[in-house]
């Protein structure tokens, strides 16, 4: 369904046309941050990848004996995509962004670029993806940097055990985007104790500084819609009929690039509406995480406690209920109470702070293996957070003038930067 989600996002939105000439030599065309986030990189600006690659899907039994309810009958284990070279080569683990699977289009583009440059690659779903919650999360409650990192580490060890007989590896490396970037550094830190991989280089792409602060900014976008987030159904239906009516007035051949470009050129949706659609997409994503976690823990949060859902039961009401819950509902009513039980005396503020990379900034500063790339107009960061990253990483950071949140990650120049980061020799630039 990744392509469907893409279709959804692409379909729903429109991008105001880039205003006048570009301000620098950077060729990514879309100026607006919301628009870039929704449109991403158009096919003609994504580099060409080899038509055939040596890849296979790994289905990992990360937690032996894990009981899975009948409604998740299709989940046979943690799914990772493995691309491998015949000769000895460095291996890169790639961690997906919030909610994404091991085959998210952005993740696969990074994988293909690295594969093309001669790397082995293993992609991992985000710990907030349902597949990960069901098959690889010890607590089955996603969102904690430390626990998610421990789960990811176990998954990586399992994946490595499965493939180590088939390939020769010269070094281990790590990369993640969005929420996955913050998780990558937490995994790297854990590895300093465990020493299974001793990662050579670690790249963060469009990271959050504080998970809580970034999500607050996304939730705020949904507050701009008429009636606020509790009326998102009305908003969704209105946006969709606008979209569909526009199609019928114009003389379009199909829902294709020309049609979408026209929506962009005609500015069918306002800036606020575009932001609202991003917020809504986030909620739809979050709903999957909440539902999967609730079913796996039998917490009675959105599904009646002790109800055993069958593979053919309707889940539509759960979909509607879950999408109407905010991240703060999840945090206050579900997430925080769980950790409070685990760590008595834990305050909300302390929990929020532990989900921030500031909690490990000493480590990030001291180790030369890290690199960071993001965009000036990535809306998940405040101005202060962007400055903080700039200062923390100094020469090890690369900040593009535009691209929104991940809109430009599949752009040629960005992918070339990623490859170059892992290709270039050694680790230098240890100063902030």
């Amino acid at each position, binding site marked *: 369904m*990744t392509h469907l*989600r893409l279709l959804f996002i692409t379909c729903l939105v429109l991008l105001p046309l880039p205003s006048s000439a570009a301000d620098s030599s950077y060729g990514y065309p879309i100026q607006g941050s919301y628009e870039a986030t929704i449109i991403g990189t158009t096919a003609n600006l994504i580099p060409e990848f080899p038509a055939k690659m040596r890849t296979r899907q790994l289905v990992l039994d990360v937690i032996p004996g894990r009981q899975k309810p009948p409604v998740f009958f299709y989940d046979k284990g943690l799914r990772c995509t493995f691309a491998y070279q015949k000769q000895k080569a460095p291996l890169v683990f790639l961690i997906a962004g919030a909610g994404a699977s091991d085959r998210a289009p952005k993740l696969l583009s990074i994988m293909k670029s690295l594969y093309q440059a001669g790397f082995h690659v293993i992609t991992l779903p985000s710990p907030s993806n349902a597949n990960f919650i069901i098959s690889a999360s010890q607590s089955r409650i996603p969102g904690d940097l430390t626990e998610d990192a421990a789960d990811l580490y176990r998954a990586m060890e399992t994946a490595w055990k499965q493939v180590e007989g088939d390939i020769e590896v010269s070094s281990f490396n790590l990369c993640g985007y969005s929420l996955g970037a913050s998780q990558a550094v937490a995994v790297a830190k854990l590895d300093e104790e465990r020493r299974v991989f001793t990662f050579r280089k670690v790249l963060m792409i469009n990271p959050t500084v504080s998970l809580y602060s970034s999500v607050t900014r996304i939730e705020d976008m949904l507050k701009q819609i008429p009636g606020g987030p509790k009326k998102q159904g009305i908003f969704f239906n209105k946006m969709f009929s606008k979209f569909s009516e526009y199609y019928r007035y114009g003389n379009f051949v199909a829902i294709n690039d020309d049609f979408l470009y026209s929506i962009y050129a005609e500015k069918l949706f306002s800036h606020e509406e575009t932001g609202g659609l991003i917020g809504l997409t986030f909620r739809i994503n979050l709903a999957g995480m909440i539902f999967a976690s609730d079913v796996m823990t039998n917490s009675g949060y959105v599904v009646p406690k002790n109800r*055993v859902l069958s593979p*053919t039961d309707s889940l539509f009401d759960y979909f509607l209920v879950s999408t109407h819950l905010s991240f703060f509902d999840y945090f206050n009513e579900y997430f925080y109470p769980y950790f409070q039980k685990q760590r008595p005396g834990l305050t909300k503020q302390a929990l929020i702070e532990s989900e921030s990379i500031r909690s490990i900034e000493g480590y990030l500063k001291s180790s030369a293996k890290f690199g960071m790339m993001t965009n000036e107009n990535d809306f998940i960061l405040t101005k202060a957070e962007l400055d903080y990253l700039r200062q923390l990483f100094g020469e090890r950071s690369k900040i593009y003038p535009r691209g929104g949140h991940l809109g430009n990650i599949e752009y040629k120049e960005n992918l070339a930067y990623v490859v170059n980061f892992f290709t270039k020799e050694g680790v230098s630039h240890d100063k902030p």
Partner: protein
Amino acid sequence: MTNHNRYRARYCIFALMLGLSLAGCAATMVNTPVEEPPRHSISEFKDQRFAEVADPWEGFNRNMYRFNFYFDTYLFLPVVNGYEFVTPTFVQERISSFYNNIGEVKNLTNSLFQLKGTESATTLGRFLTNSTIGLGGLFDPATSFGLERHDQDFGKTLGYWGSDSGPYLVLPIFGPSSVRDTGGLIVDTGITYGIYAGIDPFGSTGNSFAISSGVTTLDAVDSRHQQSFRYYESGYPFEYYMVRFFYHEKRDMESRKPLPEN
């Protein structure tokens, strides 16, 4: 495969489908703990429902969705993967192009049914160009000449003349559909078969049945090869609803009559 085996295979598939569709009915509750109401339920939200599609046979449809997942996993995709592995990319592209060109016949008949003059001319132009200069459809020069492809089928024709999609329906192997589009699929298949029987392209070979079975099988493999969708791949627990909604909306938008410009 002998005839006997073929029947067996069909019987097995049929039995499996039937079994899956009835499986839901057979589940009985034994000694489960008492249910407690959840913290959040639908009654607390005063909002419009969204992304909803008429789906009175959801239980059946979910069974079919699941059947297709198993069919893909254990039969269809292994065959497609094998095909992709042994066939050079260049050959794969020629094969896709060939079948896409044959599909123009369906596009043409249906744009004629919809009395779309320009579109019919374009599609006919594409078919003639690609069948000749494009070496029997192996290449697609028509697109570079500016002749755009217009995908049509009888489901869209019905929609164009005002027929509603009817309830959502997941078909075995074919996947997401609706009552209207299933009817359309039957009509299109009938027309294609009628044309085929009229021309009988392999009639003189003496092996007509074997060759046409091969051609049909390759057609099925090629269309699955061209379709990147994989059941349950997203891991998203509400994937069924996303697929249902986008299928329905896309069909609805693409089949209805354009509105007049104000």
